[in-house]
Protein backbone atom coordinates (compact mmCIF):
# COMPACT_ATOMS: atom_id res chain seq x y z
CA UNK A 1 0.00 0.00 0.00
CA UNK A 2 2.00 2.98 -1.18
CA UNK A 3 0.96 6.59 -1.21
CA UNK A 4 1.20 6.68 -4.99
CA UNK A 5 -2.04 7.01 -6.89
CA UNK A 6 -2.64 3.64 -8.44
CA UNK A 7 -4.30 3.74 -11.85
CA UNK A 8 -5.24 0.10 -11.72
CA UNK A 9 -6.37 -1.24 -8.36
CA UNK A 10 -5.69 -4.81 -9.47
CA UNK A 11 -1.97 -3.99 -9.60
CA UNK A 12 -1.78 -3.44 -5.85
CA UNK A 13 0.79 -5.83 -4.39
CA UNK A 14 -0.44 -8.60 -2.18
CA UNK A 15 -1.26 -7.57 1.33
CA UNK A 16 1.02 -8.87 4.05
CA UNK A 17 0.73 -9.09 7.82
CA UNK A 18 3.96 -7.08 7.92
CA UNK A 19 1.76 -4.08 7.12
CA UNK A 20 1.10 -3.91 10.88
CA UNK A 21 4.78 -3.86 11.76
CA UNK A 22 6.52 -0.76 13.11
CA UNK A 23 10.02 -2.09 12.41
CA UNK A 24 12.50 0.69 11.54
CA UNK A 25 10.12 3.32 12.94
CA UNK A 26 10.86 5.86 15.65
CA UNK A 27 7.95 6.84 17.87
CA UNK A 28 7.65 9.63 20.42
CA UNK A 29 5.05 8.98 23.11
CA UNK A 30 4.13 12.01 25.17
CA UNK A 31 2.95 11.05 28.63
CA UNK A 32 4.61 7.71 27.92
CA UNK A 33 5.80 6.97 31.45
CA UNK A 34 2.45 6.09 32.97
CA UNK A 35 -1.11 4.95 32.29
CA UNK A 36 -2.24 4.75 28.69
CA UNK A 37 1.01 6.29 27.43
CA UNK A 38 3.04 3.53 29.01
CA UNK A 39 0.73 0.86 27.53
CA UNK A 40 1.20 2.35 24.06
CA UNK A 41 4.97 2.73 24.47
CA UNK A 42 5.15 -1.00 25.19
CA UNK A 43 2.84 -1.78 22.26
CA UNK A 44 4.92 0.26 19.83
CA UNK A 45 8.14 -1.37 21.03
CA UNK A 46 6.60 -4.86 20.76
CA UNK A 47 5.65 -4.06 17.15
CA UNK A 48 9.27 -3.21 16.38
CA UNK A 49 9.52 0.55 16.92
CA UNK A 50 12.23 2.43 18.78
CA UNK A 51 10.43 4.48 21.39
CA UNK A 52 11.09 7.86 22.96
CA UNK A 53 9.29 8.40 26.26
CA UNK A 54 8.57 12.10 26.77
CA UNK A 55 7.08 12.77 30.18
CA UNK A 56 7.56 14.47 33.50
CA UNK A 57 9.08 12.60 36.42
CA UNK A 58 12.44 11.07 35.67
CA UNK A 59 11.96 8.11 37.99
CA UNK A 60 8.92 6.74 36.16
CA UNK A 61 10.54 7.34 32.78
CA UNK A 62 13.61 5.36 33.79
CA UNK A 63 11.40 2.51 34.92
CA UNK A 64 9.45 2.28 31.64
CA UNK A 65 12.63 2.50 29.56
CA UNK A 66 14.10 -0.36 31.62
CA UNK A 67 10.93 -2.44 31.15
CA UNK A 68 11.07 -1.98 27.38
CA UNK A 69 14.81 -2.66 27.19
CA UNK A 70 14.34 -5.80 29.27
CA UNK A 71 12.20 -7.16 26.41
CA UNK A 72 15.09 -6.55 24.02
CA UNK A 73 13.69 -3.38 22.43
CA UNK A 74 15.17 0.10 22.17
CA UNK A 75 13.84 3.00 24.23
CA UNK A 76 15.01 6.39 25.37
CA UNK A 77 13.51 8.57 28.09
CA UNK A 78 13.59 12.34 27.81
CA UNK A 79 12.07 14.33 30.68
CA UNK A 80 9.79 16.89 29.04
CA UNK A 81 7.36 19.51 30.31
CA UNK A 82 4.46 19.26 27.87
CA UNK A 83 3.53 22.92 28.39
CA UNK A 84 6.99 24.24 27.55
CA UNK A 85 7.74 24.76 23.84
CA UNK A 86 11.49 24.96 24.51
CA UNK A 87 11.50 21.63 26.33
CA UNK A 88 9.55 20.04 23.47
CA UNK A 89 11.96 21.51 20.93
CA UNK A 90 14.81 19.98 22.92
CA UNK A 91 13.03 16.60 22.95
CA UNK A 92 12.58 16.65 19.20
CA UNK A 93 16.18 17.64 18.55
CA UNK A 94 17.46 14.92 20.85
CA UNK A 95 15.26 12.35 19.17
CA UNK A 96 16.64 13.29 15.77
CA UNK A 97 20.22 13.24 17.11
CA UNK A 98 19.67 9.85 18.69
CA UNK A 99 17.70 8.10 15.92
CA UNK A 100 17.93 10.33 12.85
CA UNK A 101 14.19 10.26 12.19
CA UNK A 102 10.71 10.67 13.73
CA UNK A 103 7.96 8.55 12.21
CA UNK A 104 5.24 8.51 14.83
CA UNK A 105 4.05 11.04 17.38
CA UNK A 106 1.60 9.73 19.95
CA UNK A 107 0.08 12.61 21.95
CA UNK A 108 -1.11 11.03 25.16
CA UNK A 109 -0.28 13.59 27.82
CA UNK A 110 -3.42 14.89 29.49
CA UNK A 111 -6.10 14.09 31.99
CA UNK A 112 -9.32 15.22 33.62
CA UNK A 113 -7.46 16.60 36.64
CA UNK A 114 -3.87 17.30 37.57
CA UNK A 115 -1.49 19.09 39.90
CA UNK A 116 -2.45 22.44 38.40
CA UNK A 117 -6.18 21.95 37.83
CA UNK A 118 -9.14 20.19 39.34
CA UNK A 119 -12.34 18.85 37.88
CA UNK A 120 -15.80 19.44 39.27
CA UNK A 121 -19.12 21.14 38.60
CA UNK A 122 -18.69 24.22 36.41
CA UNK A 123 -19.63 26.65 39.19
CA UNK A 124 -16.81 25.32 41.34
CA UNK A 125 -14.11 25.73 38.69
CA UNK A 126 -11.74 28.68 38.45
CA UNK A 127 -10.38 30.29 35.34
CA UNK A 128 -7.11 28.48 36.08
CA UNK A 129 -8.84 25.09 36.22
CA UNK A 130 -10.40 25.80 32.85
CA UNK A 131 -7.28 27.14 31.15
CA UNK A 132 -4.88 24.58 32.58
CA UNK A 133 -7.09 21.69 31.45
CA UNK A 134 -6.99 23.17 27.96
CA UNK A 135 -3.22 23.65 28.17
CA UNK A 136 -2.53 20.09 29.23
CA UNK A 137 -5.01 18.36 26.93
CA UNK A 138 -5.08 20.48 23.79
CA UNK A 139 -2.20 22.95 23.68
CA UNK A 140 0.29 20.17 24.48
CA UNK A 141 -0.83 18.14 21.44
CA UNK A 142 -0.50 21.28 19.34
CA UNK A 143 3.01 22.03 20.65
CA UNK A 144 4.36 18.49 20.25
CA UNK A 145 2.91 18.22 16.75
CA UNK A 146 4.18 21.63 15.69
CA UNK A 147 7.69 20.70 16.80
CA UNK A 148 7.67 17.30 15.08
CA UNK A 149 5.97 18.16 11.81
CA UNK A 150 8.91 19.96 10.13
CA UNK A 151 10.89 16.70 10.38
CA UNK A 152 7.98 14.63 9.10
CA UNK A 153 7.45 17.01 6.19
CA UNK A 154 11.11 16.76 5.33
CA UNK A 155 10.95 12.95 5.49
CA UNK A 156 7.71 13.08 3.49
CA UNK A 157 6.14 10.66 5.92
CA UNK A 158 4.76 10.58 9.41
CA UNK A 159 1.83 9.62 11.56
CA UNK A 160 0.37 11.62 14.43
CA UNK A 161 -2.17 10.08 16.80
CA UNK A 162 -3.98 12.24 19.32
CA UNK A 163 -5.69 10.87 22.39
CA UNK A 164 -9.27 12.03 22.72
CA UNK A 165 -12.08 10.47 24.70
CA UNK A 166 -15.55 9.03 24.33
CA UNK A 167 -16.48 12.02 26.47
CA UNK A 168 -16.08 14.01 23.27
CA UNK A 169 -18.52 11.75 21.44
CA UNK A 170 -21.47 11.10 23.71
CA UNK A 171 -24.77 12.51 22.54
CA UNK A 172 -26.18 12.10 26.01
CA UNK A 173 -25.66 14.91 28.48
CA UNK A 174 -22.29 14.34 30.15
CA UNK A 175 -21.41 13.42 33.70
CA UNK A 176 -21.20 16.41 36.05
CA UNK A 177 -17.57 17.21 36.72
CA UNK A 178 -16.30 16.11 33.31
CA UNK A 179 -17.42 19.25 31.47
CA UNK A 180 -14.04 20.82 30.83
CA UNK A 181 -12.30 17.52 30.15
CA UNK A 182 -14.92 16.55 27.57
CA UNK A 183 -14.65 20.00 26.01
CA UNK A 184 -10.88 19.68 25.68
CA UNK A 185 -11.20 16.24 24.11
CA UNK A 186 -13.78 17.52 21.61
CA UNK A 187 -11.19 20.17 20.78
CA UNK A 188 -8.59 17.46 20.22
CA UNK A 189 -10.94 15.69 17.79
CA UNK A 190 -11.35 18.85 15.76
CA UNK A 191 -7.68 19.75 15.96
CA UNK A 192 -6.99 16.31 14.51
CA UNK A 193 -9.01 17.10 11.40
CA UNK A 194 -7.27 20.42 10.80
CA UNK A 195 -3.86 18.81 11.23
CA UNK A 196 -4.79 16.13 8.69
CA UNK A 197 -5.91 18.81 6.26
CA UNK A 198 -2.94 21.16 6.68
CA UNK A 199 -0.17 18.58 6.72
CA UNK A 200 -1.43 16.38 3.88
CA UNK A 201 -0.57 14.37 1.90
CA UNK A 202 2.38 12.71 3.61
CA UNK A 203 1.42 13.04 7.26
CA UNK A 204 -1.59 11.14 8.53
CA UNK A 205 -3.34 12.45 11.64
CA UNK A 206 -6.04 10.59 13.59
CA UNK A 207 -7.35 10.34 17.09
CA UNK A 208 -8.39 7.56 19.43
CA UNK A 209 -11.48 8.21 21.52
CA UNK A 210 -10.70 6.12 24.55
CA UNK A 211 -13.35 4.73 26.83
CA UNK A 212 -12.83 3.24 30.26
CA UNK A 213 -9.27 2.10 30.94
CA UNK A 214 -8.17 1.61 34.52
CA UNK A 215 -4.93 3.56 34.73
CA UNK A 216 -2.90 3.65 37.96
CA UNK A 217 -4.10 7.22 38.54
CA UNK A 218 -7.73 6.17 38.11
CA UNK A 219 -7.22 3.13 40.32
CA UNK A 220 -5.92 5.43 43.08
CA UNK A 221 -8.58 8.12 42.87
CA UNK A 222 -11.84 6.59 41.66
CA UNK A 223 -14.70 5.70 44.01
CA UNK A 224 -15.85 2.06 43.74
CA UNK A 225 -19.43 3.14 42.94
CA UNK A 226 -18.28 5.15 39.95
CA UNK A 227 -16.12 2.24 38.81
CA UNK A 228 -19.10 -0.12 38.97
CA UNK A 229 -21.26 2.37 37.05
CA UNK A 230 -18.64 2.59 34.31
CA UNK A 231 -18.37 -1.17 33.99
CA UNK A 232 -22.14 -1.54 33.72
CA UNK A 233 -22.03 0.74 30.65
CA UNK A 234 -19.62 -1.48 28.69
CA UNK A 235 -21.22 -4.07 26.40
CA UNK A 236 -18.29 -6.48 26.53
CA UNK A 237 -18.33 -6.53 30.35
CA UNK A 238 -14.75 -5.51 31.00
CA UNK A 239 -12.51 -2.45 31.08
CA UNK A 240 -9.94 -1.73 28.42
CA UNK A 241 -6.53 -3.32 28.92
CA UNK A 242 -2.99 -2.55 27.70
CA UNK A 243 -3.32 -4.88 24.72
CA UNK A 244 -6.50 -3.08 23.59
CA UNK A 245 -4.93 0.35 23.45
CA UNK A 246 -1.67 -1.00 22.01
CA UNK A 247 -3.51 -2.88 19.24
CA UNK A 248 -5.44 0.20 18.21
CA UNK A 249 -2.42 2.52 18.25
CA UNK A 250 -0.17 0.07 16.37
CA UNK A 251 -2.83 -0.44 13.68
CA UNK A 252 -3.22 3.31 13.13
CA UNK A 253 0.52 4.02 13.22
CA UNK A 254 1.38 1.23 10.79
CA UNK A 255 0.99 0.98 7.02
CA UNK A 256 -2.21 -1.00 7.65
CA UNK A 257 -3.73 2.38 8.47
CA UNK A 258 -2.53 3.95 5.21
CA UNK A 259 -6.02 5.14 4.19
CA UNK A 260 -7.12 5.96 7.74
CA UNK A 261 -6.63 9.71 7.99
CA UNK A 262 -8.35 12.74 9.48
CA UNK A 263 -10.55 10.25 11.29
CA UNK A 264 -11.18 8.71 14.68
CA UNK A 265 -11.34 5.32 16.31
CA UNK A 266 -13.81 4.90 19.17
CA UNK A 267 -12.28 2.50 21.66
CA UNK A 268 -14.78 1.73 24.37
CA UNK A 269 -15.97 -1.88 24.18
CA UNK A 270 -19.48 -0.72 23.32
CA UNK A 271 -20.41 2.12 25.63
Amino acid at each position, binding site marked *: *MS*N*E*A*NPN*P*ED*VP*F*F*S*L*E*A*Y*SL*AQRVAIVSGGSDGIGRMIAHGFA*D*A*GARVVIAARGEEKITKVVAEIEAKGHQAVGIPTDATDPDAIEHLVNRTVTEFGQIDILMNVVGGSQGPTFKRGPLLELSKEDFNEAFNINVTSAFLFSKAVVPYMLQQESGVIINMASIGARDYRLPETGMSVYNMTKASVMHLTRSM*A*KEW*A*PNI*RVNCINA*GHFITPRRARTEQPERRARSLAEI*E*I*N*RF*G*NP*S*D*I*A*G*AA*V*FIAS*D*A*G*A*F*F*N*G*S*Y*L*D*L*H*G*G*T
Partner: protein
Amino acid sequence: MDLSRFSMEGRTVIITGGSGGIGRGCARAFASAGANIVIASVPADSIPPALEEIEKLGSQALGISVNVAEPLELDRMVGETLQRFGRIDALINVAGGSYSRNPDMPQYKRSSLSEMDGEDFVGAYVGNVKTAFLASRAVIPHLQKSGKGSITNIGSIAGLDRKPSSPDIAAYGTAKAAVHSLTVHMAHQWGPQVRVNCIAPGTIDTPRPEGTVRPEMAQAAQRIAVGRVGVGDDIGSVALFLASDAAGFVNGIVIPVHGGE
Protein backbone atom coordinates in the same frame (compact mmCIF):
# COMPACT_ATOMS: atom_id res chain seq x y z
CA MET B 1 8.75 -8.11 16.89
CA ASP B 2 5.37 -9.54 17.80
CA LEU B 3 2.41 -9.11 15.44
CA SER B 4 0.49 -12.08 16.84
CA ARG B 5 -2.41 -9.92 18.02
CA PHE B 6 -3.29 -9.39 14.34
CA SER B 7 -3.14 -13.10 13.50
CA MET B 8 -6.24 -15.08 12.49
CA GLU B 9 -4.49 -18.45 12.49
CA GLY B 10 -6.98 -21.29 12.96
CA ARG B 11 -10.04 -19.08 12.54
CA THR B 12 -12.62 -19.07 9.78
CA VAL B 13 -13.99 -15.92 8.21
CA ILE B 14 -16.94 -15.59 5.84
CA ILE B 15 -16.81 -12.64 3.46
CA THR B 16 -20.04 -11.83 1.65
CA GLY B 17 -19.44 -10.02 -1.61
CA GLY B 18 -16.00 -11.54 -1.23
CA SER B 19 -15.14 -11.56 -4.90
CA GLY B 20 -15.57 -7.80 -5.48
CA GLY B 21 -13.05 -5.00 -4.85
CA ILE B 22 -13.47 -4.46 -1.12
CA GLY B 23 -14.27 -8.15 -0.60
CA ARG B 24 -11.09 -9.20 -2.40
CA GLY B 25 -9.10 -6.70 -0.31
CA CYS B 26 -10.56 -8.25 2.84
CA ALA B 27 -9.82 -11.76 1.55
CA ARG B 28 -6.17 -10.88 0.89
CA ALA B 29 -5.76 -9.37 4.36
CA PHE B 30 -7.34 -12.34 6.14
CA ALA B 31 -5.37 -14.79 4.00
CA SER B 32 -2.14 -13.05 5.00
CA ALA B 33 -3.19 -13.44 8.62
CA GLY B 34 -3.65 -17.19 8.24
CA ALA B 35 -7.46 -17.44 8.32
CA ASN B 36 -9.58 -19.99 6.50
CA ILE B 37 -11.70 -17.99 4.11
CA VAL B 38 -15.17 -18.42 2.69
CA ILE B 39 -15.99 -16.28 -0.31
CA ALA B 40 -19.77 -15.94 -0.45
CA SER B 41 -20.67 -14.23 -3.67
CA VAL B 42 -23.43 -14.19 -6.24
CA PRO B 43 -21.61 -14.23 -9.57
CA ALA B 44 -20.24 -17.76 -9.60
CA ASP B 45 -17.63 -16.96 -12.26
CA SER B 46 -16.01 -14.30 -10.06
CA ILE B 47 -15.23 -16.83 -7.33
CA PRO B 48 -12.40 -18.95 -8.84
CA PRO B 49 -9.96 -16.04 -9.32
CA ALA B 50 -10.62 -14.93 -5.74
CA LEU B 51 -9.96 -18.44 -4.43
CA GLU B 52 -6.79 -18.74 -6.44
CA GLU B 53 -5.49 -15.49 -4.97
CA ILE B 54 -6.16 -16.67 -1.41
CA GLU B 55 -4.54 -20.05 -1.95
CA LYS B 56 -1.47 -18.34 -3.36
CA LEU B 57 -1.15 -16.59 0.00
CA GLY B 58 -1.12 -19.99 1.70
CA SER B 59 -4.62 -19.98 3.13
CA GLN B 60 -7.51 -22.36 2.57
CA ALA B 61 -10.47 -20.98 0.68
CA LEU B 62 -13.99 -22.11 -0.03
CA GLY B 63 -16.20 -20.39 -2.58
CA ILE B 64 -19.97 -20.48 -2.21
CA SER B 65 -22.30 -18.94 -4.75
CA VAL B 66 -25.10 -17.55 -2.60
CA ASN B 67 -27.84 -14.95 -2.73
CA VAL B 68 -27.35 -13.22 0.63
CA ALA B 69 -30.90 -11.85 0.57
CA GLU B 70 -32.28 -15.40 0.91
CA PRO B 71 -32.32 -17.04 4.37
CA LEU B 72 -32.36 -20.59 2.97
CA GLU B 73 -29.30 -19.91 0.85
CA LEU B 74 -27.56 -18.43 3.86
CA ASP B 75 -28.32 -21.58 5.85
CA ARG B 76 -26.68 -23.57 3.06
CA MET B 77 -23.68 -21.23 3.25
CA VAL B 78 -23.37 -21.87 6.99
CA GLY B 79 -23.73 -25.63 6.49
CA GLU B 80 -21.05 -25.82 3.80
CA THR B 81 -18.72 -23.64 5.86
CA LEU B 82 -19.06 -25.83 8.94
CA GLN B 83 -18.62 -28.97 6.89
CA ARG B 84 -15.36 -27.70 5.46
CA PHE B 85 -13.85 -25.75 8.36
CA GLY B 86 -15.87 -26.79 11.43
CA ARG B 87 -16.25 -23.30 12.85
CA ILE B 88 -17.09 -19.68 12.05
CA ASP B 89 -15.23 -16.88 13.83
CA ALA B 90 -15.85 -13.78 11.76
CA LEU B 91 -18.35 -12.47 9.26
CA ILE B 92 -17.56 -9.55 6.99
CA ASN B 93 -20.70 -8.15 5.37
CA VAL B 94 -19.41 -6.59 2.18
CA ALA B 95 -22.28 -7.49 -0.17
CA GLY B 96 -24.17 -4.37 -1.22
CA GLY B 97 -23.62 -1.26 -3.24
CA SER B 98 -25.18 1.90 -4.57
CA TYR B 99 -26.84 -0.01 -7.40
CA SER B 100 -27.48 -3.68 -8.13
CA ARG B 101 -24.84 -5.38 -10.22
CA ASN B 102 -26.09 -8.93 -10.23
CA PRO B 103 -29.11 -10.02 -12.26
CA ASP B 104 -29.84 -12.72 -9.65
CA MET B 105 -30.24 -10.19 -6.83
CA PRO B 106 -33.06 -7.66 -6.19
CA GLN B 107 -32.67 -4.94 -8.80
CA TYR B 108 -32.27 -1.26 -7.97
CA LYS B 109 -30.62 1.70 -9.60
CA ARG B 110 -29.28 5.08 -8.55
CA SER B 111 -31.23 8.27 -9.07
CA SER B 112 -32.13 11.49 -7.35
CA LEU B 113 -35.03 11.35 -4.91
CA SER B 114 -37.49 13.14 -7.23
CA GLU B 115 -36.79 10.65 -9.99
CA MET B 116 -36.66 7.59 -7.78
CA ASP B 117 -39.49 5.12 -7.39
CA GLY B 118 -40.28 3.12 -4.29
CA GLU B 119 -38.84 -0.08 -5.73
CA ASP B 120 -35.38 1.38 -6.19
CA PHE B 121 -35.53 2.98 -2.76
CA VAL B 122 -36.43 -0.32 -1.12
CA GLY B 123 -33.95 -2.14 -3.36
CA ALA B 124 -31.07 -0.16 -1.88
CA TYR B 125 -32.33 -1.10 1.58
CA VAL B 126 -32.65 -4.78 0.71
CA GLY B 127 -29.25 -4.86 -0.99
CA ASN B 128 -27.36 -3.18 1.84
CA VAL B 129 -29.28 -3.63 5.09
CA LYS B 130 -31.39 -6.76 4.78
CA THR B 131 -28.43 -8.73 3.43
CA ALA B 132 -26.21 -7.73 6.38
CA PHE B 133 -29.00 -8.53 8.81
CA LEU B 134 -29.83 -11.94 7.34
CA ALA B 135 -26.23 -13.05 6.93
CA SER B 136 -25.47 -12.03 10.51
CA ARG B 137 -28.54 -13.76 11.88
CA ALA B 138 -27.57 -16.93 10.02
CA VAL B 139 -24.08 -17.14 11.51
CA ILE B 140 -24.57 -15.66 14.98
CA PRO B 141 -25.04 -18.96 16.88
CA HIS B 142 -21.67 -20.10 15.55
CA LEU B 143 -19.94 -16.79 16.22
CA GLN B 144 -21.18 -16.97 19.81
CA LYS B 145 -19.52 -20.36 20.16
CA SER B 146 -16.24 -19.13 18.70
CA GLY B 147 -14.97 -17.32 21.80
CA LYS B 148 -13.47 -14.71 19.45
CA GLY B 149 -16.53 -13.98 17.34
CA SER B 150 -16.98 -10.76 15.44
CA ILE B 151 -19.06 -9.18 12.70
CA THR B 152 -17.83 -6.32 10.58
CA ASN B 153 -20.34 -4.47 8.41
CA ILE B 154 -19.44 -2.19 5.55
CA GLY B 155 -21.22 1.15 5.83
CA SER B 156 -20.23 4.27 3.96
CA ILE B 157 -19.32 7.89 4.50
CA ALA B 158 -22.40 8.42 2.31
CA GLY B 159 -24.29 7.43 5.45
CA LEU B 160 -22.41 10.00 7.57
CA ASP B 161 -22.03 12.96 5.24
CA ARG B 162 -23.79 16.23 5.86
CA LYS B 163 -22.88 17.22 2.31
CA PRO B 164 -23.78 14.37 -0.03
CA SER B 165 -21.36 13.95 -2.91
CA SER B 166 -24.18 13.62 -5.47
CA PRO B 167 -28.00 13.50 -5.51
CA ASP B 168 -28.19 9.97 -6.87
CA ILE B 169 -26.79 8.32 -3.76
CA ALA B 170 -29.64 9.38 -1.47
CA ALA B 171 -31.16 5.90 -1.15
CA TYR B 172 -27.71 4.33 -0.76
CA GLY B 173 -26.68 6.85 1.90
CA THR B 174 -29.95 6.27 3.74
CA ALA B 175 -29.43 2.51 3.62
CA LYS B 176 -25.82 2.75 4.80
CA ALA B 177 -26.88 4.97 7.71
CA ALA B 178 -29.20 2.11 8.60
CA VAL B 179 -26.25 -0.30 8.47
CA HIS B 180 -24.43 1.97 10.95
CA SER B 181 -27.39 1.84 13.29
CA LEU B 182 -27.85 -1.91 12.78
CA THR B 183 -24.23 -2.31 13.90
CA VAL B 184 -24.99 -0.70 17.25
CA HIS B 185 -28.06 -2.86 17.80
CA MET B 186 -26.19 -6.06 16.91
CA ALA B 187 -23.37 -5.15 19.30
CA HIS B 188 -25.91 -4.50 22.02
CA GLN B 189 -27.84 -7.73 21.49
CA TRP B 190 -25.05 -10.16 20.67
CA GLY B 191 -22.34 -8.98 23.06
CA PRO B 192 -20.31 -9.72 25.01
CA GLN B 193 -19.53 -12.96 23.11
CA VAL B 194 -19.57 -11.27 19.70
CA ARG B 195 -18.13 -7.86 18.84
CA VAL B 196 -19.87 -5.99 16.02
CA ASN B 197 -18.38 -3.01 14.20
CA CYS B 198 -18.74 -1.15 10.94
CA ILE B 199 -16.29 0.40 8.50
CA ALA B 200 -17.53 3.51 6.69
CA PRO B 201 -15.29 3.68 3.62
CA GLY B 202 -14.81 6.84 1.61
CA THR B 203 -13.98 6.70 -2.09
CA ILE B 204 -12.67 3.25 -2.95
CA ASP B 205 -11.70 2.33 -6.47
CA THR B 206 -12.72 -1.21 -7.21
CA PRO B 207 -12.06 -3.25 -10.33
CA ARG B 208 -14.70 -2.57 -13.00
CA PRO B 209 -15.73 -4.54 -16.03
CA GLU B 210 -13.35 -3.94 -18.89
CA GLY B 211 -14.01 -0.76 -20.83
CA THR B 212 -15.57 1.03 -17.85
CA VAL B 213 -13.90 4.36 -17.17
CA ARG B 214 -14.27 6.20 -13.91
CA PRO B 215 -12.99 9.75 -14.43
CA GLU B 216 -14.51 10.69 -11.09
CA MET B 217 -11.72 8.75 -9.37
CA ALA B 218 -9.00 11.16 -10.50
CA GLN B 219 -11.19 14.03 -9.38
CA ALA B 220 -11.83 12.39 -6.03
CA ALA B 221 -8.11 11.89 -5.40
CA GLN B 222 -7.69 15.66 -5.41
CA ARG B 223 -10.05 16.21 -2.52
CA ILE B 224 -8.60 13.37 -0.40
CA ALA B 225 -5.84 14.42 2.00
CA VAL B 226 -3.58 11.42 1.30
CA GLY B 227 -3.75 12.34 -2.38
CA ARG B 228 -5.26 9.14 -3.72
CA VAL B 229 -8.48 7.16 -3.64
CA GLY B 230 -8.60 4.00 -1.60
CA VAL B 231 -8.23 0.44 -2.85
CA GLY B 232 -9.67 -2.81 -1.53
CA ASP B 233 -6.57 -3.50 0.57
CA ASP B 234 -7.07 -0.23 2.45
CA ILE B 235 -10.37 -1.55 3.75
CA GLY B 236 -9.07 -5.11 4.13
CA SER B 237 -6.39 -3.99 6.57
CA VAL B 238 -9.01 -2.26 8.72
CA ALA B 239 -11.36 -5.26 8.55
CA LEU B 240 -8.56 -7.58 9.66
CA PHE B 241 -7.72 -5.26 12.56
CA LEU B 242 -11.36 -5.20 13.65
CA ALA B 243 -11.71 -9.00 13.56
CA SER B 244 -8.40 -9.64 15.30
CA ASP B 245 -7.50 -9.71 19.00
CA ALA B 246 -5.90 -6.30 18.51
CA ALA B 247 -9.42 -4.85 18.44
CA GLY B 248 -10.66 -6.73 21.51
CA PHE B 249 -12.07 -3.50 22.98
CA VAL B 250 -13.49 -2.14 19.72
CA ASN B 251 -17.21 -2.77 19.73
CA GLY B 252 -20.38 -1.14 18.44
CA ILE B 253 -18.51 1.49 16.46
CA VAL B 254 -18.48 3.00 13.00
CA ILE B 255 -14.96 3.79 11.83
CA PRO B 256 -14.71 6.25 8.92
CA VAL B 257 -11.87 5.27 6.55
CA HIS B 258 -11.57 7.86 3.81
CA GLY B 259 -7.98 9.04 3.55
CA GLY B 260 -9.00 12.46 4.80
CA GLU B 261 -12.10 14.03 3.27
